[in-house]
């Protein structure tokens, strides 16, 4: 960025922050829209149009401008980039829930995710729905509904780690592809397994080849059991699609 541009931005910021000049704020937003667009481009191909992502990113930019404190000694763009990215990522998380899932159900699901792991550790086994309901202070039907709502996540959203499970899973789990052939139905499964990415394949391997339970897998790779369930579900969907496709290709 050239010095003239930086000087101009500082002037606009000053005009907005010190004098409440809304026109300066608008000009600043316009000036930084290419930045928003370039960040939004990183998230294309995930089911959202670029225009929508730019709109979402723009909200992040506006928030960044409004909250930016020039006295902190950092550049506006330094502050704006994570704010814009955060807004886009939040959009994907919110969008990941089906639009018809009530907020209360989503909140109960989030609570259940934590309770499930806590109770599993406490009881030494997977809790029943009744036990989950008691712990959550909810009815069993509400718990079933909330657990079902987890499946409202879009498959695409599952490729990104949720809030409390940051870190690349693919870096956390090793990939051992050996042993598949030893399984009687390996021929049937191989086509599907080949369609999975490393973490999905690892989870499928642990569950179906090594016989670990979901909670054991969760402990093994350091994610919640609910997340294992989602990944397992997605992996099976992917495998099914690939197996069907390979069946259609065969004479």
């Amino acid at each position: 960025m050239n010095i003239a541009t930086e000087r101009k931005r500082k002037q606009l910021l000053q005009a907005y922050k010190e004098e409440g000049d809304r026109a300066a704020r608008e000009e600043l937003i316009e000036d930084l829209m290419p930045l928003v667009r370039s960040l939004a481009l990183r998230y294309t191909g995930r089911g959202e149009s670029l225009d929508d992502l730019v709109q979402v990113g723009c909200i992040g930019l506006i928030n960044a401008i409004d909250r930016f404190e020039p006295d902190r000694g950092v550049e506006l763009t330094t502050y704006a980039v994570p704010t814009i990215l955060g807004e886009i990522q939040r959009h994907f998380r919110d969008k990941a829930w089906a639009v018809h899932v009530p907020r209360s159900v989503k909140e109960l699901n989030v609570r259940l995710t934590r309770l499930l792991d806590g109770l599993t550790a406490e009881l030494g086994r997977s809790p029943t729905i009744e036990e989950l309901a008691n712990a959550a202070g909810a009815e069993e039907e509400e718990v079933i509904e909330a657990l079902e709502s987890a499946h409202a996540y879009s498959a695409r959203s599952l490729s990104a780690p949720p809030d409390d499970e940051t870190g690349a899973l693919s870096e956390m789990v090793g990939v051992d592809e050996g042993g598949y052939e030893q399984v009687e139905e390996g021929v049937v499964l191989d086509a599907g397994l080949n369609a999975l990415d490393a973490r999905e394949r690892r989870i499928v391997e642990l569950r179906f080849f090594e016989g670990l339970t979901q909670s054991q897998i969760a402990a093994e790779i350091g994610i919640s059991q609910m997340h294992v369930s989602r990944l397992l579900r997605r992996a099976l969907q992917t495998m099914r699609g690939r197996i069907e496709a390979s069946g259609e290709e065969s004479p």
Partner: protein
Amino acid sequence: MSASLVTLAAMDRISLTVPAEPAFHATLRLVVGGVGSRLQLPYEQVDELQLAVEALVSGRVSVESTLVLEVELDGGAALVTIGPFASDPERERDPIVERLVRRARVVHRDGDADWVELSVGADGEGGSP
């Protein structure tokens, strides 16, 4: 909703008929979840029973415009039967579904149609220990 829920007289058998459309798969999962809850199954077994049902209805071809889910409750166990599916000799065994429940097998009814029976609960084990 065009789904119909019929609870039979003995109260230990449930039959649910839904259109054979993906939009109703969630309905099937909810009913199965309720059954698992009534049986006091661990959450993991409930989840994997739901997953097995989902795998069946998504992966097999229905031969009618409706799908039927039947549940027979027997103490702490349940026999969940779902169909009718197009007969498929290559799917007499489903290695994935077999690992999700205590037992899975294909039975033939209504002529050639495949129905899949899933056993869960009792005898200690479902799909997950």
